[in-house]
């Protein structure tokens, strides 16, 4: 009762990295609250295969739901697993990846349990809350912190009265860390038919294509990112050239992705990929909060912008005031000259 729960997303029998990142965060939240960390995994033929990918993150109890029809994921059966399990276990916090699956499942579960859910959180903390309207105080709530309003402000959301307090977090926002490879957690294998009625299996997956990630943006040590100011698909060519020279990857702001200059998989920010590279070169990116949320932990930030007052310059280590079209070719030229 009252524990922290993490829903572990699976591709076949492989646990998603985002789930392991959430387990690491969930462990810290559970320690802070003095409660246990529990995890849920649901799939087909997963017994004996997922436990070792989950328990080492400090999971005290793992619920494995293994039955035909639970993989690939469809909404209704996974919803009923969580809803019925949460009714029994009464978690205080439930975390899901802000993936296609997590964003399909989370809202359905929260609606069923009438609990609050905050999407795409960039920070999760524990703290107190005083409701000024009612004068009531609450101890140890989950602060769900996220950029809001298109990334122009940062909001802290709390769910004072409803449980579980639910949040989704994007891949890469939290860092995964094994607590103990031999961590001893209890594992249970509930009878799936007691949680999932047969009529849940109404949506069928006819066909499925999943490709490996198209790029290595998330773990690349060097990221060259472009904004809307790059002007076009062709404008990005010089960024690809610089990234190739530095053995890095190309990222982009949301505006550049929305404009169709680059593939959405390259979007850096709250609603894209969160990166932690050694060097982040921001080319013509002004620096909306939702973008900065996805790159502020870079070791070195270089900003190239014609506007010396661009917000991103406040977090930059090197500020180059100039046109990207002039600066990037020079970076390529001098990098090649000096690396010989």
């Amino acid at each position: 009762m009252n524990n922290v729960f993490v829903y572990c997303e699976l591709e076949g029998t492989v646990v998603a990295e985002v789930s392991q990142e959430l387990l690491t965060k969930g462990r810290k939240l559970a320690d802070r609250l003095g409660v246990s960390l529990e995890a849920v995994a649901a799939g087909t033929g997963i017994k004996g295969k997922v436990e070792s990918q989950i328990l080492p993150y400090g999971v005290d109890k793992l619920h494995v739901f293994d039955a035909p029809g639970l993989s690939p994921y469809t909404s209704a059966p996974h919803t009923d697993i969580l809803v019925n399990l949460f009714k029994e276990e009464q978690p205080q916090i439930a975390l899901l990846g802000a993936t296609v699956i997590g964003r399909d499942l989370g809202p359905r579960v929260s609606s069923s349990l009438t609990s609050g859910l905050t999407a795409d959180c960039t920070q999760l903390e524990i703290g107190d809350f005083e409701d000024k309207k009612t004068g009531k105080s609450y101890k140890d709530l989950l602060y769900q912190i996220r950029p809001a309003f298109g990334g122009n402000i940062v909001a802290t959301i709390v769910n004072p009265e409803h449980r579980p307090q639910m949040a989704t977090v994007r891949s890469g926002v939290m860092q995964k860390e094994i607590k103990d490879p031999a961590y001893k957690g209890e594992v249970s294998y509930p009878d799936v038919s007691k949680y999932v009625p047969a009529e849940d299996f109404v949506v069928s997956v006819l066909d499925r294509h999943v490709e490996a990630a198209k790029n290595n943006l998330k773990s690349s040590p060097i990221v060259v990112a472009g904004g809307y100011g790059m002007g076009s698909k062709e404008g990005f060519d010089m960024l690809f050239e610089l990234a190739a020279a530095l053995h890095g990857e190309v990222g982009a702001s949301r505006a550049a992705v929305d404009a169709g200059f680059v593939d959405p998989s390259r979007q850096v920010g709250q609603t894209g990929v969160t990166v932690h590279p050694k060097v982040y070169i921001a080319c013509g990116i002004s620096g909306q909060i939702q973008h900065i949320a996805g790159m502020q932990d870079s070791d070195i930030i270089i900003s190239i912008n014609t506007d010396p007052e661009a917000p991103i310059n406040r977090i930059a280590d090197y500020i180059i005031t100039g046109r990207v079209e002039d600066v990037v070719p020079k970076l390529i030229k001098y990098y090649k000259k000096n690396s010989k």
Partner: protein
Amino acid sequence: MNLRIIVLAKQVPDTRNVGKDAMTPEGTVNRAALPAIFNPDDMNALEQALRLKEQNPGTSVGILTMGPPRAAELIRQGLYRGADTGWLLTDRLFAGADTLATSYALATAIKKIGGADIIIGGRQAIDGDTAQVGPQVAQKLGLSQVTYAEEILDCKDGRLTIRRHIDGGTETVSAPMPCLITVNGTAAPCRPANAKLVMKFKRASCPSERVALPVKPGTPGRDDSYDYLYDSREWLNLTQWSVADIDGDPQQCGLAGSPTKVMAVQNIVFQAKESKSLSDSDADIEWLVKELRDEKIIG
């Protein structure tokens, strides 16, 4: 097959094109600086609905939206493109709703309408990016859901075949009707407004909008009287519903019905770092490259 389709649409501030004046010096959002638009993903959803209407004669498409009276503009935008009707939920009691309270209002209105074969909306709205309202409406109505849809491929024998986006790829699913679909922004863009339909519906309005209209001189019964216009052309009267009109529970609507509370809103001011400022001169760029190499930051 005559389908009944309800399109869920939201009027949103255009957060994609915010300039420096989007925030006030006090750190609050300057709404006046942001134009109100038809949420982009909802436009993609409307297109899928209109295609189903073309393929299935006798199908009706209605636009359901919640917002202030000016949100009736969304219904007009839908009518201009081929929708048949619309409903505006507007009431102070709906204000301040989080996704759960919003989904309660929409689901309750859909029950009032008498349900539908397909309820379709955008994957998410650009002002919140939560993608939560669609699945929550589906749950409240006990319907199957297909999120992140890119194209409705087929509709027959009471089932829909839908191609949807998933992480790292695509999936094709078969879902029984009635169901709720949310449409990804990568789906086909919506058709433009049709000039004839614009002519027909440009004066369509909901009652609370009409209050704000300037009184036009003219006596009842004459062509230039608005009363005459709305009495004689029923298609210009858009449906407007309050919480009471949909038999809603005020405790589950708006701020009162929202489990999530905004504790704090900050306009983040980044701690200024100690940074080096450079020009775009050759000397400066070469110095930077050498410094990064010397510090072994780049190879």
